[in-house]
């Protein structure tokens, strides 16, 4: 049986959903133009991943195989809607900024991936830790991409201006295609440096 820290490190870094499994790419491209959006999106995904993993694991012995994916989607959707309602009621400004992307966490492949690959075969506590790990790994990637895009695209970090008046914003960084290049470079660097993949 794996230790909790090992589960966390595994799902957050060694088997990171984005750079290792190439999952959750759509949202990594869409919301990373600002770091605050990336952070809130990351927190929403951590919450949904951890609790949906816990719940799916809790009821795994009673879940019929034929409808398991429908049940998993239902559980994931319920937690995502809870995040959405919470943001609307308590952090309305951030909810407004994120717009439809909070709801789109439901379609994030990482959630279904972890539900199918881990939560449906492991105990609830391990699934909870795995969910937090996968969410942290995902958020990390979002924040790194967001950092580069916001810095060069807006000259700011978390909305705070860091570049002087001399700086000309790079329009391409605000647009989704820039995230493709940054993500590709990130995956390349990690593959070469960490996994020692020969190019």
């Amino acid at each position, binding site marked *: 049986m794996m230790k909790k820290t090992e589960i966390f490190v595994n799902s957050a870094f060694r088997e990171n959903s984005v750079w290792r499994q190439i999952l959750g790419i759509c949202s990594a491209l*869409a*919301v990373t*133009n*600002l770091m605050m*959006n990336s952070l809130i999106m990351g927190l929403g995904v951590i919450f949904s991943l951890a609790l949906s993993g816990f719940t799916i694991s809790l*009821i795994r012995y*009673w*879940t*019929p195989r*034929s*409808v398991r994916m*429908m*049940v998993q989607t*239902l*559980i994931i959707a*319920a937690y995502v*809607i*809870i995040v959405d*309602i*919470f943001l*609307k*009621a*308590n952090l*309305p400004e951030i909810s407004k*900024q*994120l*717009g*439809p*992307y909070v709801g789109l966490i439901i379609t994030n492949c990482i959630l279904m991936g972890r539900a199918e690959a881990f939560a449906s075969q492991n105990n609830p506590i391990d699934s909870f830790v795995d969910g937090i790990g996968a969410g942290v790994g995902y958020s990390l990637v979002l924040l790194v991409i967001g950092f580069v895009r916001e810095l060069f695209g807006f000259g700011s970090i978390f909305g705070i201006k860091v570049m002087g008046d001399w700086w000309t914003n790079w*329009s391409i960084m*605000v*647009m989704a295609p820039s995230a493709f290049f940054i993500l590709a470079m990130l995956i390349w660097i990690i593959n070469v440096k960490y996994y020692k993949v020969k190019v």
Partner: protein
Amino acid sequence: MSDKTFKDSPMYPVLFMLATCVIFVGVLAVMFRSSEAKIEAYKQNAYQGMILGLLANSISEASGESKDDLLREPQVSYTNYIKEIKLPGLDRKVFAAVVNDSTIAYCFDIGGKGLWGTMRALAALSLDCKTLLGIVIYEQMETPGLGARIGEEWFLAQFRNVTLYQPDGTAFEFSFIPEGQKAVDMHQIQQITGATITSVSVLKMLRDEINLINTVNQQQAQ
């Protein structure tokens, strides 16, 4: 004797799915009901705050009260100075800024089509509806970071105190500042980079809605 249990019966998945749906939908319904009042109150306050913000300069000039004082207690100022009215023939929400029983400006709830869906905005107009005092886009489904930037202050500031009609009555047309140049008059707008369709949609919404308001206004005057 059969080894089959209830879990193996064809009805089990149906009942399991039904039970799961009931439980989760129930939890969501309770959560939504408990937050609904908070969400609605926030929406209402934000909406009223936007109307007051658009009309604050005009109210401040007419009443002598400073803009900061007006915005310090928005609910009180809204109750004191803003009245929702009906303009016959106009199917829009209309708010009038009333100071000492005299109407000094209007705010219209307008709408149009964006890139991904409808957008709704508040447009404040002078009493004769010939000057655009300001706009706020309060509902839109544009791409975050691109088209959604129509809600940013720098973009909206371009529509503040803009004369809409020439002295002979012909309307001024809004246009975009050509690449690499500067605005030559107040009707040239800096569009959002990478969101041309959304920028065009905002101008179209303004043109269509202001024309409609003025047509109704003229009919009323006759």
